[in-house]
């Protein structure tokens, strides 16, 4: 990625995401009275986040990349999520586990 592409992405994401927020304050309440549309928007992050988790966990570009330290770290993070640990603890546990495993000669 070139530096200018980076700036374009950052500025367009900032403008677009801000307008999405502002739109909700500007539009009349009845626009979202349709329950179908409402549930679609509520469910959209579920599908996207699940797909992102898979891609981040096992993909490297267009190929599968199964990395033991990463998957065990992710698993420890998943247990923390299941135990309803706060965000920061989930991140620290997952990163710490993977980093520690990479220091051992096993992985």
């Amino acid at each position: 990625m070139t530096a200018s592409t980076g700036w374009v992405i950052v500025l367009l994401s900032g403008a677009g995401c801000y307008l999405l927020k502002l739109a909700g304050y500007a539009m009349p309440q009845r626009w979202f009275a349709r329950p179908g549309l409402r549930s679609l928007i509520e469910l959209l992050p579920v599908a996207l986040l699940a797909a992102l988790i898979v891609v981040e966990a096992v993909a490297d570009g267009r190929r599968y990349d199964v990395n033991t330290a990463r998957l065990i770290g992710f698993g420890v993070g998943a247990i923390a999520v299941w135990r309803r640990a706060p965000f920061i603890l989930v991140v620290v546990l997952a990163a710490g586990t993977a980093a520690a495993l990479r220091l051992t000669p096993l992985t």
Partner: protein
Amino acid sequence: MTSGVGGDAVDAAAAKQVVRDSLGVAIAVGSYGVAFGAASVAAGFSPAQTSLSSLLTFTGGSQFAIAGVIAGGGTAAAALGSGYLLGARNTLYALRLQPLLAVRGWRRALAALLTIDESTAMALGQRAPALSRVAFWWTAAGVYVLWNLATLLGAFGAQALGDPKRFGLDAAIPAAFLALLAPRLRAGPLPGRIAAGGALIALILIPLTPPGVPVLAGCVSLALAFDVRARRFRSPDARDAGGTS
């Protein structure tokens, strides 16, 4: 003693408790901006671009998604597409907050920037509108300040530390996404099926399509929410979501 905020009187002790809770949420959520800062720099963005993203975009899910798609070799369009789709939920939050905050002019412009998962959840969780406003502004301001400071720390830290794999960032990012997803899965069985569908679609498409596409294609699993007989989408917490009848 009571203090009137916007018409309805609020117990000062209750308001104080709300401020404390809001700052607690802000510390927990804001500090995780370190992970975004590091992920964004690892994806190839400069620390300045990374900081601007947190200042302007300010919605963690979209920011992480954009960094993730770029890191995986995806195009700018695919990255922005997943960022916007994830950011669309903020429109719904703003719509729900609109009558509660009752803001106009520059306050509305500011409220819009600060409308995210946490400020919305804290505002909607209060028993009185005045407490909702206290919760929204304190949570929002706290997360904004800490998220941006943490982003800086993560961005420069990652630059100094080098290979992000050495400190396990590649394991932390999917875990962070899971932490964002988990509360939505607890609404009922339908979100769980949609998540499984999205994950499966992405898994199959990884070697078949350009990077970034598997994430966007995951949205196809939303079809699972379509009630053919009623010709509309089921609510995430609908009781009949099992579809057995």
